């Protein structure tokens, strides 16, 4: 049974049964093939459709290049995910919703609260589409609203290790984002690991000290003791071998008393070290990295 193009009927022609079977019966059966007796299309199968290619359909999900819809939607390989971008762009998506807002990666937690992570800058001016989102290594990566690639880190501490876990799996658990690292098996948790190094102040103050010494004034006094040479008289008696008389008289003399006296001037060597205070203060600093999500009011 095949389709025969309908003929143009003309008056005054006697059509026999062959004509009617071909033009009416067979052609009607062909037209009826894909329809039920009630006139509806029987099924979307190759028995009734020469092609089942649905690429022309609208309002259905059609995989882009290399994106694969499987039991678990897999966007790996050449697949890509682009998140909504903008202020509260995904807020109305409810728990599990994610989006990029400014520099931040936002999500709505299991309880409906909005959180955001500020990813560490990876590449400024990334060529990636704003909102692009993927798992790379152990981290979540995304392209922010300015086109910069950023990453948020997680911790495997407290996460499960399941050999069958597929890399790139992504979900919200409790308050935080959870994922399976690129190579699979290990769960990472976008954690509340906020650490702030306490600011510290290194301060030491040298005790002020004053070096003072005073040389005591001293007086060196010495006095030469005056001495007096006692006058002496040399007397002798001439002998009288010859009568002559030698007479002389030694002049008495007196050593003049003298007094050597010197006085060291008192002196006052005095120096005073200027008191000083060594004081340095390390500026307090807070090492705060933004691994931790912030609860968005």
């Amino acid at each position, binding site marked *: 049974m095949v389709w025969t193009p309908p003929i143009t009927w003309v008056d005054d022609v006697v059509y026999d049964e062959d004509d009617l079977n071909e033009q009416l019966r067979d052609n009607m059966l062909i037209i009826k093939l894909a329809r039920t007796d009630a006139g509806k299309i029987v099924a979307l199968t190759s028995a009734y459709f020469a092609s089942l290619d649905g690429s022309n*359909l609208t*309002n259905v999900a059609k995989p882009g290049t290399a994106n694969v819809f499987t039991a*678990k939607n897999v966007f790996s390989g050449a697949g890509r995910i682009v998140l909504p971008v903008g202020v509260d762009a995904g807020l109305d998506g409810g728990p*599990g919703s994610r989006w990029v807002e400014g520099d931040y990666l936002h999500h709505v937690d299991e309880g409906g609260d909005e959180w955001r992570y500020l990813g560490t800058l990876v590449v400024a001016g990334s060529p990636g589409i704003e909102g692009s989102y993927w798992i790379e290594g152990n981290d979540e990566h995304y392209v922010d609203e300015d086109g910069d690639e950023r990453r948020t880190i997680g911790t495997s501490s407290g996460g499960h290790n*399941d050999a069958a876990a597929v890399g790139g799996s992504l979900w919200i658990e409790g308050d935080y984002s959870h994922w399976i690292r690129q190579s699979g098996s290990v769960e990472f948790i976008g954690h509340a690991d906020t650490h702030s190094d306490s600011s510290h102040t290194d301060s030491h103050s040298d005790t002020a000290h004053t070096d003072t010494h005073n040389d005591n004034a001293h007086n060196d006094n010495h006095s030469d003791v005056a001495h007096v040479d006692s006058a002496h008289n040399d007397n002798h008696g001439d002998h009288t071998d010859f009568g002559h008389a030698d007479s002389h008289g030694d002049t008495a003399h007196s050593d003049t008393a003298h007094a050597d006296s010197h006085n060291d001037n008192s002196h006052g060597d005095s120096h005073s070290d200027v008191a000083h205070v060594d004081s340095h203060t390390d500026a307090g600093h807070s090492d705060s990295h933004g691994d931790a999500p912030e609860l968005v009011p």
Partner: protein
Amino acid sequence: MAWTDPVTWTADQLVKAVDLNAQIRDNMLVLKIALDDDGRITAIDATRFASLDGSNLTGVARLGQANTYTAKQDYGGAGGRLVTPVGADLWAT
């Protein structure tokens, strides 16, 4: 060529060629448009379907609001959303 509603034939009616052409030839051609010669619908396209809206289909992935599945799955734009699973250990295995 356009569809002509089928007439109700009456007794003693003289059926003319023009009647048969309208009722049989032309209407069959209309009914045949979407079909190939073995009776199957040729393709799911605008030539054969007045609407390609698949929103009533079941068992297929359908878009929520403005999500666009392109070469890069785009959940952006007005109303686009990506909502990931919520709960404990929801990894794929």
